[in-house]
């Protein structure tokens, strides 16, 4: 559980881990029913009306104004998104 939360970038609390663990066991038990269908020759479906290679014309269109996009950002510096440090010193 803690491993999955870390993979999903969720800093879940101990209380949540306890609550989720029981619930997820029940849910995963229920969804495991998909294994009951024998499906060796069955292709997967993702769209009711099959489509392949959907293209649109390669036209240049105006993009959103920079200030409109940055207006929604949690932190901005020098007209760019500001992010916390990415590299962490190895101890």
């Amino acid at each position: 559980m803690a491993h999955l939360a870390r993979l999903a970038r969720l800093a879940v609390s101990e209380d949540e881990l306890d609550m989720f663990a029981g619930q997820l066991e029940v849910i995963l038990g229920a969804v495991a029913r998909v294994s009951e269908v024998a499906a060796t020759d069955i292709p997967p479906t993702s769209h009711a009306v099959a489509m392949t290679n959907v293209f649109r014309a390669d036209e240049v269109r105006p993009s959103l104004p920079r200030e409109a996009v940055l207006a929604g950002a949690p932190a901005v510096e020098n007209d760019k998104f500001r992010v916390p440090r990415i590299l962490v010193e190895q101890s």
Partner: protein
Amino acid sequence: MSDLIRRTAADTAAKIVSGEVSAVEVAQAHLDRIAAVDGAVHAFLHVDSAGALAAARAVDERRAAGGELGPLAGVPLAMKDVVVTKDVPTTSGSKILQGWLPPYDATITTRIKHAGIVMLGKTNMDEFAMGSSTENSAYGPTHNPWDLSRIPGGSSGGSSAAVAAFEAPLSIGTDTGGSIRQPAAVTGIVGHKPTYGAVSRYGLIAFSSSLDQAGPFGRTVLDAALLHEVMAGHDPYDSTSLNVPVAPVVAAAREGARGDLTGTRIGIVRDLSGNGAGGYEPGVLASFEAAVATLRGLGAEIIEVSCPNFQYALAAYYLIAPSECSSNLARFDSVRYGLRVGDDGVNSLEDVMSLTREAGFGAEVKRRIIIGTYALSSGYYDAYYGQAQKVRTLISRDFAAAFGQVDVLISPTSPSVAFALGERVDDPMAMYVNDLCTLPASLAGTPAISVPSGLSVSSSHPPLPVGLQIMAPALADDRCYRVGAAFEAATETLSPPAEVLS
């Protein structure tokens, strides 16, 4: 209660065209209604009075200048908060997007603006559309106008409650596993999930991309059809959008309203009518039986059909939807928009992401992200997501076989009437079974409508609405509307008891 708010959308539009009433008067009447009752209903997360009145004024000016008005010009609408609206707050029911002002419009937002439809505001929903009750909203639940202690359905519960409470004649919802149809059923209104790809997903905040589909709510089948035709159509911005003519749903609704179903073959899905399986409330089954008799009385031929793979729909859905959501919600990374928590100059980007997502997402969203992460992880993908996508194929084949015998299929929309707020919040599986009847059409990508089917009368609850689900083959949305309108014509119109919101 003002007459202006009780009218159908079709009637309101006609009276605006004829000049009997102005679009501004109509908008103001609905804003007044919202001010009067939304404290109790909580259908709206944001009311855009200034924007609504400006849009209404533009319609009135266009009419005064002799301009042509579309079939819904000047009609107010409530928009689910999962749909992006430029400069109007859009949260998808989540704290992680609190205060965000989108820099662009969704395609359906653009379409309703071009149609002269007046957007009143944004409606409450389960966070990121995950839920069946609106109780997963970060901003508190919506209350059912039939009984304020009960849920309005979900995830589009704000949109269903707004229409049922006469706060708007029309609204837009999205349906991933039943999120239009179940709220429509439990609030006694009409809601349609179009064929997947019929309505553009550009600008919908994605939950499960291979299932999400926006659609209309209205108090009549014709109103829903009129909105459907505004929303639907090919959009190059959505690569899954269908490049085909829009199904003639308005004509179908008008034809159906004549009330003749002679020659129409209707299939009862044995696997979705409570036979043997538990969980269906007696009031729901009684209403369904009465609906079958009504349809037979309209001249339809009723045939029982079996769709044996529908029993796997719930399991497949609760793998596919969480898998796709765990991927889609990765975009909430605290960098480009939304919340950021823990940016103290010491924490790394990864720490900040984890702290932000922990603080910004509610419990159900976290549960689904974790399930999806598990189902997609190396070594499990084939057994879970891959297998679930194969179940979709089997369900589609069941539909294809059934539609070889009948024109439409019917079932109850939901196994239960509106349940009490709080009743199922601690039990995710109890919440998930709400979707039992709606999931097959979601997984197959086929259209389905829910129309009011009378009241469930029981000693354990006040009279509460029940929905009849009508399912059709892909691209044949018009069949849902035709049969729905015929059924509507033969059924008594019901409104929530006036004293609930007096």
